[in-house]
């Protein structure tokens, strides 16, 4: 590291402080943002950190100047945080940054217009990212990680500042998305509920007013919550919105949306084209789609086994497993069509033994009673229209539309 003189260090520090007060007085958010973005690792911030180590009396400098002292509550802890950040001491960096951010919020509240909103976004992002790194540090030292949780509480406070009638309210959705990311990371998704309720029911918010990028992110996370809760029509609507409105160049984000949207679409009887699976590398779904198309229960079972870990991690395993009923329906339909070609007059009377044979071929050993159970379930869920002639072990299918399509609705629960 090149030697920095005391004079040079002093100059860099006053340079920063000047830029800070100038940015505020001229409401220049573009400049202000850059002064706060630690994770950008910009050369100027890094050299500022070095300067603070050389010239160690920055606090006095700040407090003794009329230009700098108004923002002392922000800049003093900010400088401390930057030094800790530079030396890799993330827990202390987080604590100091949170203190600085708190002071910033107080000032932000007093500024009438929303000119500094983008700087607030930067602060929200930095809080989350610093907290994540602080928790990693705690965990690696065998301590209990709790900074990300603290960041969540802090950002809820910031959300409250934005949830008012003024022009600052368009920032609320960005804050919401940062909170979603925290809650999902911590696995405390039930905490999403209250902020969702605010966004969707408070009269001060008009969803259409929010910036598109925040709406896309919001719909992605709320769509995922709908998948967890198996509300497939709602999940379809939200994830489709995110998909259609997402930046087409954000391929990673599109892939994530599809990862959750595909199981939803399958559950309402809609298949993705192979092109889509290949383009976004979602080939773990290929065999599942094929199994549905064919009515191939064996293939479905293999596909679920092969990618079990992946599906469990993303939480879609149960959704995919339940596709089994639709695969049964498709298989029965094929048996029906095959028999109809042989003997049209008898096809609507399907012997359960025939189904037993077909299942045996698919390596599923079931006796006639178990098959009767399954057919009964399909009838109950309106996947098969018919009734049993129980003694003769025959299911008598409706002559009209014996295998009703889902038509975009999930299977009756």
């Amino acid at each position, binding site marked *: 590291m090149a030697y920095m003189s005391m004079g040079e260090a002093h100059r860099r520090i006053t340079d920063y402080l000047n830029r800070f007060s100038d940015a505020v007085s001229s409401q220049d958010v573009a400049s202000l943002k850059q002064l706060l973005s630690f994770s950008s690792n910009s050369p100027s911030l890094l050299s500022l950190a070095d300067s603070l180590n050389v010239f160690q009396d920055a606090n006095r400098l700040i407090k003794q100047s009329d230009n700098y002292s108004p923002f002392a509550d922000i800049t003093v802890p900010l400088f401390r945080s930057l030094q800790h950040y530079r030396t890799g001491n993330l827990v202390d960096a987080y604590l100091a940054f949170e203190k600085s951010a708190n002071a910033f919020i107080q000032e932000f509240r007093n500024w009438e217009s929303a000119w500094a909103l983008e700087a607030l976004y930067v602060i929200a992002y930095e809080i989350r990212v610093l907290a994540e790194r602080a*928790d990693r540090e705690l965990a690696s030292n065998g301590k209990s990680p709790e900074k990300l949780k603290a960041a969540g509480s802090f950002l809820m406070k910031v959300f409250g500042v934005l949830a008012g009638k003024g022009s600052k309210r368009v920032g609320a959705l960005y804050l919401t998305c940062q909170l979603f990311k925290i809650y999902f990371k911590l*696995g405390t998704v039930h905490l999403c509920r209250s902020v969702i309720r605010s966004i969707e029911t408070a009269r001060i918010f008009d969803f259409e007013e929010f910036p598109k990028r925040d709406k896309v992110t919001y719909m992605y996370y709320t769509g995922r919550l709908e998948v967890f809760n198996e509300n497939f029509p709602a999940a379809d609507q939200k994830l489709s919105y995110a998909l259609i409105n997402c930046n087409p160049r954000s391929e990673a984000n599109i892939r994530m949306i599809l990862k959750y949207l595909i199981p939803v679409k399958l559950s309402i009887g809609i298949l993705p084209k192979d092109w889509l699976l290949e383009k976004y590398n979602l080939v773990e779904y290929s065999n599942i789609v094929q199994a549905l198309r064919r009515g191939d229960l064996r293939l479905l079972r293999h596909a679920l086994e092969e990618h079990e870990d992946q599906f469990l991690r993303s939480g879609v395993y149960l959704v995919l497993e339940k596709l089994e009923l639709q695969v049964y329906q498709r298989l029965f339909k094929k048996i029906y069509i095959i028999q109809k070609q042989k003997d049209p007059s008898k096809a609507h009377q399907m012997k359960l033994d025939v189904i037993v044979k077909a299942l045996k071929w698919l390596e599923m050993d079931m006796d006639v009673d178990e098959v009767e159970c399954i057919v009964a379930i399909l009838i109950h869920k309106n996947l098969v229209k018919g009734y049993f002639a129980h003694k003769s072990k025959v299911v008598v299918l409706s002559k009209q539309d014996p295998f009703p399509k889902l038509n975009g609705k999930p299977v009756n629960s």
Partner: protein
Amino acid sequence: MEIETKVAIGDPKIDLFEDDDEFEEFQINQEWDEKEEGKEIAQQWEDDWDDDDVNDDFSLQLRRELENNSEKSQVYAPLFFLLLRLILLFVRQSLDGIMLYCFSAIVENSW
């Protein structure tokens, strides 16, 4: 609209860095025009795949399975094999008898 979460997601401490699918941040102020691509992606779904076509490999194999193991042979096949076994047994015993007769004739004649 209230969203209830029914699925618990593990112990927070252990699952600290769960969520492989964190959405990437869009740049602040980033605008984009997605109309063309949005339309293209919306056309990648099929809802009319559930047709009556049974000419694919899977369906043809299914048809063969259903025909090969047709009901009659399930009743008659065991009977058939039983009959075959009896015949073979009879033939073997008969053969043994014939062999014995021939052998003894040869022995007799050579004396």
